[in-house]
């Protein structure tokens, strides 16, 4: 089943120089393992291809049901150098939530996920 990330997670993002961070938080604790499984560094780097110029680093926070991603080269130099509307990466979080992931039908049903 196709599931929209925005239906199973919320998120907030911020900046450190030219790096944006996106913290993704499972809306229900039992959905966190899906995030851990599906949101690999590679998958997120693919998602942001053409949007960021650098690599993606992931950290796990099982205590918060959250993943933290560092997106390098995301902000056109960052801070005051950047010409971008979102120079401080404030809404990168919502760009990640556009992702659509595949969840096996049986698992999706047992976890009560909505189809995209």
């Amino acid at each position: 089943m196709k599931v929209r990330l925005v239906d199973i997670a919320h998120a907030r993002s911020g900046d450190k120089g030219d790096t944006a961070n996106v913290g993704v938080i499972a809306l229900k604790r039992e959905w966190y393992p899906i995030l851990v499984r599906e949101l690999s560094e590679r998958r997120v780097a693919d998602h942001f291809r053409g949007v960021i110029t650098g690599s993606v680093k992931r950290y796990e926070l099982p205590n918060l049901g959250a993943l933290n991603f560092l997106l390098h080269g995301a902000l056109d130099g960052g801070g005051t150098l950047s010409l971008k509307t979102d120079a401080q990466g404030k809404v990168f979080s919502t760009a990640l939530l556009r992702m659509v992931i595949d969840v096996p039908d049986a698992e999706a049903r047992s976890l009560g996920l909505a189809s995209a």
Partner: protein
Amino acid sequence: MKQVVRVAAGQGFWGDWLEAPRRQVEGGPVDYLMLDYLAEVTMSILQKQKERDPKMGYARDFLGAIESVLPAIVERGVRVIANAGGVNPVSCAQAVKELAAARGAAGKVKIGVVTGDDLLPRLDDLIARGHALANMDTGEPLTAVRDRVLSANAYIGSTPIVEALSRGAQVVVTGRSTDTALTMAPLRFEFGWAPDDWNKLAAGIVAGHIIECGAQCSGGNCLIGWRDVPDLANVGYPIVNAHPDGTFEISKHPGTGGRISVPTVTEQLVYEMGDPHAYITPDVVADFTTIQLESVGPDRVRVFGIAGGAPTDKLKVSIAYRAGFKAVGTLVYAWPDALEKAQAADRVLRERLDRLGLRFDKIMTEFVGVSATHGPLAGRPNADLPEVQLRFGVRGESKAAVERFTRELAPLVLNGPPSVTGFAGGRPKVEEIVAYWPALIDKTEVQTAVEVIA
């Protein structure tokens, strides 16, 4: 020893809600008011102000905040801790003293001033003695931009603030203290936490991180259930209710709007997060993967279980330097074919800049309403958009070239694609870019000092 100490956040950045400090001290009992004014580039703005007038260089909003809470300070003993001092904490403290005197509180408010973070006067000496102050992101030594440096300040920790409190200061003014130190210092002071009690110090850091952006943990800028966050017009700013054992609850005053829940606090915890295992501060390295959250009542979240470890032997240094010029301008194109018209205007503009022989380090076009924030992830736009904003920016070393660019936008209204409006703001403003250069310095090179005036 008190069993609970209440630290209220009243300002998440310079420019935050002017009402918040007064609402925090009048809305219910609090012991400390914490005001965070400094962002990465704020110090350089303040340095420019100080160059024009040696008495300036601090966050002037702070005086308004102090004026609004002066009765609470004098009558109820609420203490205020703020990094409003910027690059001139001494003048800031003097201004607070004069303000208190002018409002009939002469001599009633002891003011502590923390100095020692300003490295600008010592920069050449530090470089000469082998401190490269290399850019933490690029590895370049500071000598590459030395002649363009505007300000250089070490991020300092909670120790000098604790000293100021122990010497009776009721208002503590610092320069580039870390945001989190402003919250941790009163907890260290009240509970007598040892300087190597890493878990408790880490708890103080986490408390500081949760409230340092003001309402961003209490329903503001909150994505989860945003439609249902009650009464944002009357939003309550957060309060840390801390205990001697290092646990604490986040709350807000009764009758205020907003929301404090496990999800709203979690959103703030991940904000601007790097490696969660090592949140490095001058006092302690906190492990954010140990934080436990629990809802313990309406708009009340308990935070516990936090672990930390010894800090490094370095301090981070915030350096600001001149890095050329930029300008950004916008025009709005209307239906029909709004995006196509904006794209055509972009092509015309680029060709004209090119024919003028203007060279820039960067030219950037965004189509606001189509792809400005999500880029290609936004997908194909609706073919029937009512309007699209063309947002066009340039950046370069030559001020003249950037200035010339600003004259090329308005002519498009008459000599470019049709159905264009939204140019009433006039020519784009040329801005000098003051860029951020993060570096590290040995802790032994930075000596802070505390003075208490009345």
